[in-house]
Structures are given as C-alpha cells and as structure tokens.
C-alpha cells in the first residue's frame, strides 16, 4: 500500500506537537479571517504570506500554518454568508441562497452547524480523492513537454475566463494584463531588461505578492469607503446552538453527491470552487424538483453548496500540485505561497519532495478535523467577531498589508505599486473585469513563456510543434471549447442572484 506508507510519512511530518499547535492557531485565525466581512480565503491568506515568510518558519511549518488558515477561511466564510447575507468570496454566494433565509427563520444555529458538517464532509472526501488521484496524475504529467505545458496554461486561462466572467473579452484582457506584467524585468535568456521603461525598481520584475495583496486586500478598502461600511450589521439573532442531527442525517446523500460533483469541478484547471458550489447546488435543486423548496431556506440548500465548495477546493489542489496550474483564486494564492517557500509544484514534487506533498495532505486532514471540533462549540465566539466594525477592521487590514509587503523587500516602491494595484483592482471589479486571471497571469506568465520558448527552440521555430502530440491537441481543443462554450451556455446556465431583503 503505497498511499498508506506515504500518508504515514505525511503524518510523521505534520503530527509533531509544534505543527499541531500551528494547525490549531491557523484554523482559529483562518475561521476569523473567513468570518470577517470583506476578508476571504484569498485576501486573508495573501496578507499573511509575507508575514509568515518574515517569521522564518521552515517550509513544512509554514505550509501547515497557511493551509490551516486557508481551510479555516473556507469554513469561516459561511458564517458571514449565513448571518449577514454577505459572501466572503465568490463560491460562498451559493450558500447565501438558502443559508440566509434559513437564518431569518430563526434557525441560524442549525444552518451554521449543518454547513460546518457539510464543509467537513466535502473537504474530507476531497482530500481522500486528492490522495488517490494526484500521484497517478503526477505520473501522467511526466509525459508533458513544453508544447503540452503551453497548451495547459492556455487551457487554465480560457476556462477560468469562461467560467468566472460574464464577458469573454474582459477575462482575456485580464489575463493579458497579468501576463504582460509578468514579462516585465530582466529576461531570463538574454540577461537584458525588458519592458521596464528604464525604471531600476522594475528590473526585478513585479512581485506577485504585491499584486495579490493590492488587488485583493487594498481594493477592498476602496469598496468600503464607497459604501461607508454599511450593510455589515448582523440582521439575525443567534440563539442556543444545538447539533441538528435530523437535518444532518436527512442531507447525507446530498453531501456525498455534492462532494463528488464539487471535486470533479475542482479538478478542471481554471474552473475552481465557484463552479463546484454552483454545480452542486444546481444538481441538488434539480434532483429535489419544485417541491424541494430550494431558495426558501431548506437544509439541503445549505449542505449542497458548502460540501461542493469545499470539495472543489480540495479538487483544485490536484492540478495545482501535479501540474502547477491552480484552479481558482484561492489556489492561486496557495501557489503563490508555495513559490514563496521555493517549492515548485509539478510532477517532480511528488518524487523529489514527498515529505512536502504528504505533509500538506496530512495537514489538510488534521486541519479539517480541528475545524469541525472547533466550529461547532465555538461558533458563538466567531459570530461575536463579526461585530468588529468596518472602520476598525479595514484600516487594520491595510496596515498589516503594508507591513507585510514592506517586510519583503523594504522598498517604498513595492508599497506604491501595491496602492496602485489596489486602485486598479477597484476599477477592474467595478467594470466587471475578473481579477483572478490577472493574478494567475502574473504567477504563471514566466512558466508559460518558458514553455513557449522551449517549444520554439526544440522545433527550430516551427509553430506546428505546438499541436504535435495528442495530449497537446486535446488541451487546445478543451481550451477553445472552454472559452467559447460559455458564450452559448450563458443563457441556459444563468447564475441565481443573491436574495435581497
């Protein structure tokens, strides 16, 4: 049993008292981050990466801490979805559809516990799926040459744009902004600066952390200035929290089905968690039919998107770890974390550094169990944290972001760029241009260009080399289909709008 011995290795790494302590801290911190309105898994993890880096933790400890924060934030996101009707990030939108009506019926505690259990089931099954699937995909990934990798990156951008945005041109533009920023700096092969405009500060290129923190965290401040922090008051009361055994038992098949659907959606490179929770909710809605009462606050409507969302988050780790292609905004941030720790995801990660991969998987399992144990009894404490007013929270987040980015390089230029990215993020989001492709472009631009260059060098400039293998052709077809198909499916697969009071 390869998997069991590998898992034993992983638990050996992740189960020391110190890492266990980090996992508990990370889960607690993550749940708070996820619960706070305006902070979600992506920006919460983003502002913590530079600080973790400066703390000087070793790779495994940092990884355990940050994955716990990541999973914790996924858990915590449902608290603000259910109680405030404010989704912390895009996948959580589906949870508001039934969670908020259920909370308004006076069953807020039930909804919170049920969604916590559903999150656990989804994340747990997805982690097991990850263990089974990732090593075999890693073996397939050895067949990938530069042409295949180029097509794969293209597929990620195409499907991400196709799914996440309402306008293909805008998502393509967003990807180009990111890729264009990635090309700035000293060229790897000639050693000469490219596209820097003569600015010495740009010779190093643009650090992806600066862009991530700017686009995700600083941009949020502008949204709060625009709205003057309104709409963050808890509208529903939370009474005594009990465990709703009947609801959990009733939704067991829903959770299992949604986990499977979410996991498969998560594996698709570029599709990610939003698609997972959407598909899971829609599947359950059509199975339940008209009488199911979806949208009015039924337990199944809470369990399905939460299980799907968390399963997709686990599924998204499969392409991220084996191919280095993240499937969503939050996995892109995790990829940024790995790259900061000098870990390069890809098929060789499984053979060269098994302790990192299996330590990560073991810490995911640990984080899951810690979160379930922490969330049910402590949900009231987390609800209290929601009361932190925006006028204290957002300035605080900004200052933490500044210190974090400043600690990376000690340069005012990075800070100014971060403010610039914040303003850009505000404009982009206002214009309905997705920001995740920008991040993905900055993260993957270098690799994508390297793949293209290697392909061109190998084939002596022959463009047809890019389509020379069955895998590459398959990826190209999938990329084009992923980009074009949503244009026609948009009318059929209309996203449900959030409930308004």
């Amino acid at each position, binding site marked *: 049993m390869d998997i069991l011995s590998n898992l034993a290795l992983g638990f050996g790494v992740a189960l020391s008292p110190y890492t266990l302590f980090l996992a508990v801290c990370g889960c607690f911190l993550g749940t708070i981050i996820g619960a706070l309105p305006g902070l979600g898994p992506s920006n919460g993890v983003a502002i913590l990466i530079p600080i973790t880096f400066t703390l000087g933790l070793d790779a495994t400890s940092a990884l355990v801490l940050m994955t716990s924060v990541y999973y914790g934030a996924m858990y915590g996101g449902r608290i603000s979805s259910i109680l405030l009707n404010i989704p912390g990030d895009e996948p959580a939108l589906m949870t508001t559809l039934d969670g908020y009506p259920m909370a308004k019926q006076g069953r807020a505690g039930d909804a919170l516990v049920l969604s916590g259990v559903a999150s656990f089931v989804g994340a747990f099954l997805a982690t097991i799926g990850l263990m089974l699937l990732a090593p075999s995909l890693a073996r397939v990934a050895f067949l990938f040459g530069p042409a295949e990798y180029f097509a794969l990156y293209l597929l990620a951008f195409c499907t991400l744009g196709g799914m996440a945005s309402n306008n293909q041109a805008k998502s393509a533009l967003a990807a180009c*902004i990111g890729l264009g920023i990635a090309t700035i700096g000293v060229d790897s092969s000639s050693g000469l600066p490219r596209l820097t405009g003569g600015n010495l500060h740009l010779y190093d290129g643009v650090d992806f952390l600066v862009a991530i923190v700017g686009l995700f965290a600083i941009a949020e401040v502008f949204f709060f*200035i625009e709205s003057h922090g309104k709409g963050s008051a808890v509208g529903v009361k939370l009474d005594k929290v009990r465990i709703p055994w009947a609801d959990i038992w009733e939704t067991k098949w829903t959770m299992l089905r949604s986990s499977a659907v979410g996991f498969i959606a998560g594996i698709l490179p570029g599709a990610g968690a939003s698609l997972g929770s959407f598909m899971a909710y829609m599947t359950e809605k059509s199975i339940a039919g008209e009488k199911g009462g979806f949208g009015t606050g039924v337990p199944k409507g809470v369990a399905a998107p939460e299980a799907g969302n968390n399963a997709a988050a686990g599924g998204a780790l499969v392409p991220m770890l084996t191919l280095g292609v993240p499937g969503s905004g939050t996995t892109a941030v995790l990829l940024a974390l790995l790259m900061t720790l000098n870990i390069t995801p890809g098929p060789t990660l499984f053979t060269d550094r098994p302790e990192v991969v299996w330590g990560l998987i073991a810490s995911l399992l640990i984080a899951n169990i810690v979160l379930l144990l922490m969330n049910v009894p402590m949900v009231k404490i987390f609800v209290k944290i929601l009361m932190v007013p925006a006028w204290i929270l957002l300035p*605080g987040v900004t200052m933490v972001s500044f210190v974090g980015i400043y600690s990376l390089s000690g340069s005012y230029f990075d800070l100014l760029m971060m403010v610039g990215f914040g303003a850009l993020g505000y404009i982009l989001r206002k214009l309905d241009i997705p920001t995740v492709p920008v991040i993905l472009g900055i993260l993957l631009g270098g690799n994508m260009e390297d793949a293209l260059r290697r392909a061109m060098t190998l084939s002596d400039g022959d463009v047809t080399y890019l389509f020379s293998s069955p895998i590459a052709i398959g990826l190209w077809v999938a990329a084009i289909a992923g980009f074009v198909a949503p244009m026609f499916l948009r009318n059929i697969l209309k996203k449900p709008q959030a409930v308004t009071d």
Partner: protein
Amino acid sequence: MASDRIFGLVTLITAVAYLAAATQIQTNFFSGEFLPKLFPMLIGAVAAISSLFMVFKPDPEPDWPAAGSWISMGVAVIVLSIYAVLLKPLGFILPTIFAAGILSYQISPRAKPAMLAGIGLSLGLFVLFKFALGLGNIVAYRIPTPAKLWDAISILIPFVGH
C-alpha cells in the same frame, strides 16, 4: 456603456504602446533575435483585440459612486502613498496613527472614534509585530532629519524625486 468604451480605449493604447515596446526589446546572441519578443507580442495582440471588443461591444454601465466618494477614494490613495514613503524614515507608529485614522474616518465619518481607531491600531499592531511576531526591525520607531524626510516626500512629486 461609456465606461467600458473609455477603459477599452485606454487598454488599447496601452496594448499598442506595449507592442511597440516589445519590438524594441534588446536581444543578444544567447537569447536569439526573436524569442524574447515573441511572447510579449502575442500578449499585446490578444490584449489589443480584447480592447477592441470592449470598445465596440460594451456592457451596461456599472453604478459608479457619487462625486463625494470619488474624492474620499482619491484622498485615500494619496494618504496611502504618503504612508508608503514615510514608513521608512518615520517608522511605524506615527504614520500609522494618521493613515489608519484617516482611513477609518473615510469609512465611517465620525472624528473621535476614527482618532481612537488610529491610535489603537497603531499601538496594538506595533505591540503585535514587535513582541509577538518579532518584526521589531520593520516597525522600529525613527526620528528622521529634515533632509531625509524631504527625500522621502519628493519621491511622490513627478520629475523632482528619483
């Protein structure tokens, strides 16, 4: 409608400028003549096409905030930029009191709580960073000379700074 067209036009001009810059990329014997330019030129071309789509097929207008909010956001950008350059010469505490206080005031315009938020956040985060996280060298308190202060501020003034 109009915002999409304007933004599309801006990105179109940027894309063309980027393409022009891409043709000027320096190359040498190791990189070959064409490879450093290929990828930027592809990106520039796709960006230009996407921008054209935005100009000719714009989406409905988003709800932009009122003029007052624009001014607040402009002030926020300026405050954050000044904070960015003063963090080094002045250290963490003093600039943070002002920056956090002003941001807080802009989110919820009440002077006294905003002031308290600024002071509280500054001291609280200082203690957190220095004693809990051991980042004392980053949040240290400094007293600058006027010349250093001017050096920092002048960064933000076009054509004066460096």
